[in-house]
């Protein structure tokens, strides 16, 4: 899916060795966009659906407690569909065998990504366990809105990425929309556009990819995109 293609770019940014591009904004965590990448597996027993939902909520609450520990940059908007675990700030993430989810089918837990520990040399230092990140494939569609409303520690923050399919002249955009845009190539390669009318933050890149975030409801995202599209068309690169 083309939505997935935008994520590796972000992860590349986060892991950049230059160390220069870590903006202090909470939206740069590798989260999947709403409702993607999940293949609903058939539920064997329809009677146990309510139990399943209950367990899912527990699972999510557990995950979010872990994420709350993990959040160094204050990540808001946690979707349960994490497929990559991210090592935060040098903390060691080790996989404990006891930390698998509470139930088995139809939820298939994925093994967390462990850092490569050189088994050959024993340093004599016992690493302190700072954080545990586990990923889980819940295996069925979740009604995020209901979960967000009902579970504590949950926020609903849809983050959408899309592509306008043409390259954009960011310098022109920042000249005309100075009060909304912030473009500092030294700090971040994308232009940060803070739209006022629906209160959305858009990250606009030279390639034509646009990321929208900060919305409370889905409609705001679409509205913001409709607003920005004609502006971007005006700054299309002609070469």
């Amino acid at each position: 899916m083309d939505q997935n293609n935008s994520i590796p770019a972000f992860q590349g940014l986060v892991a950049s060795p230059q160390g220069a591009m870590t903006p202090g904004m909470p939206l740069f965590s590798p989260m999947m966009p709403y409702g993607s990448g999940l293949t609903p597996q058939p539920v064997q027993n329809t009677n146990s659906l309510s139990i399943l939902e209950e367990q899912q909520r527990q699972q999510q609450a557990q995950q979010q407690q872990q994420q709350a520990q993990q959040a160094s940059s204050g990540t808001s908007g946690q979707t349960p569909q994490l497929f990559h675990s991210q090592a935060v700030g040098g903390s060691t993430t080790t996989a404990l065998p006891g930390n698998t989810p509470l139930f088995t089918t139809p939820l298939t837990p994925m093994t967390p990504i462990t850092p490569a520990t050189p088994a050959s040399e024993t340093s004599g230092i016992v690493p302190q366990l700072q954080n545990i990140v586990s990923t889980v494939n819940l295996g069925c569609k979740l009604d995020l809105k209901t979960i967000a409303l009902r579970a504590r520690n949950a926020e609903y923050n849809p983050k959408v990425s899309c592509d306008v399919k043409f390259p954009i002249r960011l310098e022109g955009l920042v000249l005309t929309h100075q009060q909304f845009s912030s473009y500092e190539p030294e700090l971040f390669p994308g232009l940060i556009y803070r739209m006022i009318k629906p209160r959305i933050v858009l990250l606009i890149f030279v390639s034509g990819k646009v990321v929208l975030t900060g919305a409370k409801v889905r409609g705001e995202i679409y509205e913001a995109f409709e607003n920005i599209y004609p502006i971007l068309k005006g700054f299309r690169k002609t070469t």
Partner: protein
Amino acid sequence: CLLVFYHQFKLFRGSDRVIDVGSEWRTFSNEKALKDPSRVGDAQNTLLNGGDLTTMISKGTGAASFDEFGNSKYQNRRTMTSSDRAMLNAFKEISTMADRINLPRNIVDRTNNLFKQVYEQKSLKGRANDAIASACLYIACRQEGVPRTFKEICAVSRISKKEIGRCFKLILKALETSVDLITTGDFMSRFCSNLGLPKQVQMAATFIARKAVELDLVPGRSPISVAAAAIYMASQASAEKKTQKEIGDIAGVADVTIRQSYRLIYPRAAELFPPDFKFDTPVDKLPQL
């Protein structure tokens, strides 16, 4: 009469200031002693201080100023204008930072003014003063048309690039100003002279970088990286060849970054050079990384 002469002197000077704050004209002290006894206070810095109406008690000189133990009777000067003590400290820090990279007085003054505005606004009160000062220095350099990279400011400040960047954005928002976008040409003169490259090479590098951006060969690359790659290409074509590492050290970019940008401009190298350039190494012999 002397008084009349004095008045005439004042009229001749022009009436821009009502009170002449210089030294009293009657003292003919050519050998400037350590202290000027006719001055009544420090040189006024009214632009930056709230008001310099304080009393300072200096150390006594006569025998009467010492009490029985040999300590000075009157306490030394108290904290003058304590409300602005933090601001004065910041000015000192700004001056130190600017001195490290030999910034001219106009930039330092602008930085001080920016800091004063931010400080009085109090919207960034929780942030470290040094961070605000560093960010003000960065903005001042930009506003004067001679931007310094964040890394250059980092080199003379104890604050991290991330924090300076954050404060930079906050200050722009607080003061409701904006700055111009950086271009490759802003840095050519400084980088090339730091590397000891002759003017021809510098002009060639400027031309190459500008052309590369015009032809959109390097979309999305930081102007610093493009400038560094252009300098590399120009220096490799001339007699003064510089390595990527040397250029990377000066510009504050990694040599792999220079390599990336160089790879983008290399295919069209022939068009990028200025027409009157004297090649020491022809275009086809340029290094291919």
